[in-house]
């Protein structure tokens, strides 16, 4: 597969998060979590190291609980495929502050580069749109990433979905904390909630 016209994942994520302000960012397990960590640790980063298929639903629970905050889920095509029903659930709830970004390299990069369904047949943008997320788009240029990044702060016009075609290079891992209690307690603290 030619890599020439595909975007580089870390550039995409760092650009998306460059002006994140108060946004909560959920990273799907695997490379997406490393990308978010590479863009800079943040007390509103929700790193996932498991729960494959759950990233969008964690984002939805957060978005419903904090409707005035932008919530951005960044995950991979394999993780999204495992939780594809959650797009139907989001389409029904229509949280205006939720953005879902799929970094689509068409492979399971963490496990040896096996092809995912998006390499052949599945159109995730079409799936998201068919699930009722009308603002669903395919992104293939950094100019489109720039435009989309600005919209992440909008908490009244979502939900929105973007599939960004990226190259399948396996980059050096940037490891975030793997301690889920630490991560959630830190996010809750940033939002003003005390420990029990």
């Amino acid at each position, binding site marked *: 597969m030619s890599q020439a016209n595909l975007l580089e994942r870390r550039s995409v994520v760092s650009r998306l998060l460059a002006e994140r302000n108060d946004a909560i960012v959920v990273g799907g397990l695997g490379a997406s979590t490393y990308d978010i960590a590479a863009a800079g640790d943040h007390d509103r980063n*929700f790193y996932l190291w498991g729960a494959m298929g759950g990233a969008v639903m964690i984002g939805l629970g957060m978005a419903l609980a904090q409707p005035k905050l932008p919530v951005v889920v960044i995950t991979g095509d394999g993780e999204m495929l495992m939780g594809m029903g959650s797009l*139907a659930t989001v389409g029904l709830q229509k949280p205006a502050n939720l953005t879902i970004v799929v970094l689509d390299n068409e492979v399971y990069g963490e496990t040896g580069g096996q092809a995912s369904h998006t390499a052949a047949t599945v159109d995730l943008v079409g799936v998201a749109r068919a699930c009722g997320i009308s603002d669903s788009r395919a992104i293939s240029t950094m100019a489109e990433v720039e435009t989309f990044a600005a919209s992440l702060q909008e908490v009244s016009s979502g939900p929105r979905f973007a599939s960004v075609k990226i190259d399948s290079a396996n980059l050096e891992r940037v490891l975030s904390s793997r301690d889920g209690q630490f991560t959630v307690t830190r996010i809750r603290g940033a939002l003003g909630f005390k420990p029990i």
Partner: protein
Amino acid sequence: MHARTDAPPETAASWPEDIFAILQRFDVRQVPYVPDAGHSQLIERVLGASSMRAVPLTTEEEGVALLAGAWAGGQRGVLLMQSSGVGNCVNMLSLTQIFRLPFLTLVTMRGEWGEFNPWQVPMGSSTAAVFELSGIKVLRASHAEEVREVVEAAAGQAYNACTPTAVLLSQRLIGAKVFTK
């Protein structure tokens, strides 16, 4: 989807009202569910409550992840499902330990007490063991008059002590589903 009995509305059970009152008192805000006839009265109450967000799911594991996000965002929730859905949750139940979630789920039982459909029996028979293997405390209510204190205890330990807890609502309580041609 499927009624358990042909009972008219005026004989509606009071225990779903007891559960609803407890959920309100504990400030439960997000209620993900996969529909079950045994939960239908409670789901109706949740759909009509301005303080609660009912979230229909495509599969039960979505609800576990939703409640993790809700908790991180400062809200409590409860997952409503049928026993057959518990198996759909297994890997996602890891989140209850990873995040030490104040996780509460109310499960209507099938596959026991006069079950007609053999396909319900395997999962219904392993529901409690699946929860226990997943680190979830299991309480059970089999009679209408004990529902309130069992759900109250479950909500208390789930929300106050962050002890993930499931309440099994017995088929004996709900009534075996009647299949007629």
